[in-house]
């Protein structure tokens, strides 16, 4: 696990809907807008992230709202999430929870981690290793194709 000072903070730039597949793409960017990290997620997870970004409060709590509700009832806070690794096109991430100075880390998919981070407004970090290995060029190709088709790109 890299030290916090080498970690790169990212913001969720938006969630794109891939019209060809049953997936959505969460686009993360760094503060200088020089790095882009696209992460493919399932429809339910993508929708959950979009609802939170748009500050939509659904009539009934979604699964990630329920997790936040557990944490707030029990007095835990989500300090940060870190996208730690990419192996065979699968990204891995870790949630850092804390209560009374006690920190716990929990393995999670980035989609769940990001859905929780945008709800708890906690920082999102990525390790430099993940940025080196990301498939950024794939996104550019994908985006240019999408632009040609004139499909809409929902953004936060």
């Amino acid at each position, binding site marked *: 696990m890299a030290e916090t000072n080498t970690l790169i903070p990212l913001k969720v730039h938006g969630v794109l809907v891939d019209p060809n597949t049953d997936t959505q793409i969460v686009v993360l960017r760094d503060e200088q807008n020089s790095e882009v990290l696209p992460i493919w997620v399932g*429809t339910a997870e993508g929708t959950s992230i979009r609802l939170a970004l748009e500050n939509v409060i659904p009539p009934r709590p979604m699964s990630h709202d329920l997790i936040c509700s557990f944490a707030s009832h029990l007095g835990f806070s989500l300090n940060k999430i870190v996208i730690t690794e990419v192996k065979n096109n699968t990204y891995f991430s870790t949630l850092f929870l804390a209560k009374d100075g006690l920190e716990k880390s929990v393995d999670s998919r980035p989609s769940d981690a990001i859905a929780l981070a945008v709800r708890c407004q906690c920082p999102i970090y990525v390790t430099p290793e993940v940025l080196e290995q990301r498939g950024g060029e794939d996104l550019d190709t994908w985006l240019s194709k999408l632009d040609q088709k004139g499909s809409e790109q929902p953004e936060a």
Partner: protein
Amino acid sequence: MLNQMNVRGLLFDPYNNAYIVILRDEQHSDMLPIWVGKSEASAISFALEKIAPPRPMTHDLMKTLLDNMDAKVISTVITDLKENTYFAKIHLLFGDSEFTVDSRPSDAIAVALRTEAPIFASGEVLHKQNSEELERWLENLKPEDFGKPDA
């Protein structure tokens, strides 16, 4: 009064493109059908079939987080039915205190199956379900469904 329910299975509803979780009260053989979305249905079916996915799904994460927070799921209760929406509560034990968290039944069932916590339905829900179903059935009746009284 609470009735303990078992998850009897999942059905696909092609008309609504949704899934139906069938809960059953083994003692009184009351059935409670609950319509859920696709991802909620898959979260329930993974637990029913004891499939361990390569990466933790949202409800697996929910369980891991509760374990890490030293909280135990005591029970889940389907508490109410209003305008075709079911309401549920998840009862947690944390330290010496009990916490009650509002949830959708789909999340409550998905968590209960993973934590081996019992699922209950209030007697009121079972009763309302029967009457609401009857109401829906009545609403869908057309005049021609009624027999014509002989003149």
